[in-house]
């Protein structure tokens, strides 16, 4: 496939996935409401802990928004595959002449695009209801940090979603991954409070670097360029891993006849 054809395919699948997700009332509820709930919880917890409005509040609010984005991403990537299996379209996607990994990338982008809403909504919610100032140490780097953070979540969602192609009940496993990822990637609490043995795992997960990029841009002493770079490097690594995982997964699905199972 030519590069232009790949770009067009990914763009089209992204657009289509956004449309499909927005056609689901359940997804709209998850996407549009959950970041606001998480942000509200974070604001009140922050205030009850004696925190005052400022850059730290922005960091905390964005962390809460990222929790909502992760929920959206898991649903948008993995849930979409489970839905396609149920609708009977998964077989058609897998047996299309286009490479399935590009289709999966497009589906991931679709979830990421909507996930970006979670961040914007969190900021607006904080400003309007809690008087949160949009103040950051490195305000010009902050948008790039947010993009890197969302890409980090999307790429991890895509990698996990590859297993959803193989097993019809993998979606349940995906749901179970929602809270652990919050915890060990620093979305819920800073990873500095986690046991030492978990930290190597945390740093292999791109969202850890995404959260670090947000922290660095809002309250850090230096621009979080390393964290931003790590987000994109790990996202590329996840894509490569997802591609080769798919080769194995699709072969096994053809061998075990699991694509049509609901």
């Amino acid at each position, binding site marked *: 496939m030519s590069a232009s*054809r790949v770009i067009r395919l990914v763009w089209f699948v992204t657009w*289509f996935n956004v449309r499909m997700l927005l056609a689901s009332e359940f997804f709209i509820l998850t996407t549009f409401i959950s970041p606001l709930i998480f942000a509200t919880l974070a604001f009140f917890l922050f205030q009850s802990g004696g925190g005052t409005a400022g850059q730290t509040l922005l960091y905390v609010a964005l962390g809460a928004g990222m929790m909502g984005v992760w929920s959206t991403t898991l649903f948008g990537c993995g849930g979409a595959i489970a839905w396609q299996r149920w*609708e*009977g*379209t998964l077989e*058609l*996607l897998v047996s299309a*002449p*286009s490479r399935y990994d590009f289709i999966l990338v497009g589906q991931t982008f679709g979830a990421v695009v909507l996930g970006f809403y979670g961040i914007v909504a969190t900021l607006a919610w904080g400003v309007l209801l809690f008087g949160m100032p949009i103040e950051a140490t490195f305000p010009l780097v902050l948008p790039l940090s947010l993009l890197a953070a969302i890409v980090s979540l999307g790429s991890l969602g895509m990698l996990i979603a590859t297993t959803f192609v193989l097993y019809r009940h993998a979606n349940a496993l995906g749901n179970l991954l929602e809270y652990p990822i919050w915890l060990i990637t620093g979305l819920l609490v800073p990873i500095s409070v986690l046991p030492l043995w978990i930290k190597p795992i945390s740093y292999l997960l791109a969202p850890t670097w995404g959260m670090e990029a947000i922290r660095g841009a809002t309250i850090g002493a230096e621009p979080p360029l390393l964290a931003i770079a790590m987000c994109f490097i790990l996202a590329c690594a996840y894509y490569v891993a997802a591609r080769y995982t798919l080769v194995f997964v699709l072969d096994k699905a053809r061998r075990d006849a699991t694509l049509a199972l609901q």
Partner: protein
Amino acid sequence: MTTTLPRPAMPSAPVAPADGHAIEAVDLVRTYHTHLGVLRRRKIEVPAVRGISFAVRPGELFGLLGPNGAGKTTTIKMLITLLLPTSGTARVMGYDVVRDTTEVRKRIGYVFGGDRGLYDRVSALDNLRYFAELYGVDPDVQRTRIGALLEMVGLTGREKEKVEGYSRGMRQRLHIARGLLHDPEVVFLDEPSIGLDPVGARELRQTVQSLVDAGKTVLLTTHYMFEADALCDRIAVINAGRIVALGTGSDLKGAIANRTIVEIETFGVTDEAVGRLRADPEVGAVNTEERDQSQILLVQSERGAHITQRLLGLLGETRIGKVVAREPTLEDAYVHLIATTGDDEARAARAASVQ
């Protein structure tokens, strides 16, 4: 609905493969693995396809006819690269279905029957645009091709409606349009008329015929005899994972040409009475059809209409309605084939495979 098939410029694929066959299956076998039990799980092997061989010529409409569970869909799924054969080989337009999956996928269209396989929450047009991208249809020809296909399947004017509001017949026609988006050389139709009303089924048969008229090779699976007889150049009857007969509709009917079919309308016939008919050495096969208040027994025999009195005697006290003796149809040939092949062997193979 028009039956004019759009013929846009399409792939650089060969018109006919080097070996002269559009589809070729050689000793295809597919076994499924499953488990029984909860605490003491036993692994069992279920043979779905047990050594199928056939070849389809370019431009031919080839039918796979068989009862539910005979192995039709499994065979198709191996040919369209969705399942790996347990053993045996298959080629589509000269490409191996295991090794050359991308080349095969470029050249085939796959349409299955039923409600699934479409994105319900968006319009038919969005569905077709999406699959056109996935099938690599040139953006310059997408608009005209989608328009032509919508016209062909009679959905022009309804294409902007959400698919969830479509009737089953409309969905089936949309399936066909989707399967033809990339102008495939070979089209697989897996029970496309299932669940359609008589008018919808007739329109669908016209559409299928138009595919052949446009030069496509079509492999059609069905368990409707009249559909296979009306459409197919050749028919393979498949039962319990094996092809039990292959030929034209006339060939298949010829297998029981020396038989007479006696149709006996009964009211409240018992299993014992039907068993007595089946046990009679002069009777070839007995098929039972349930009607509102009655049961129609279709009895095959080589004795001609002379056997009628004997059959009525075997039915004993059963209340009898109309009795007719007639020439055999393809359906009768099919019933004979299914009744006399496969089942015992399949059960034996399944029982033996329990590990």
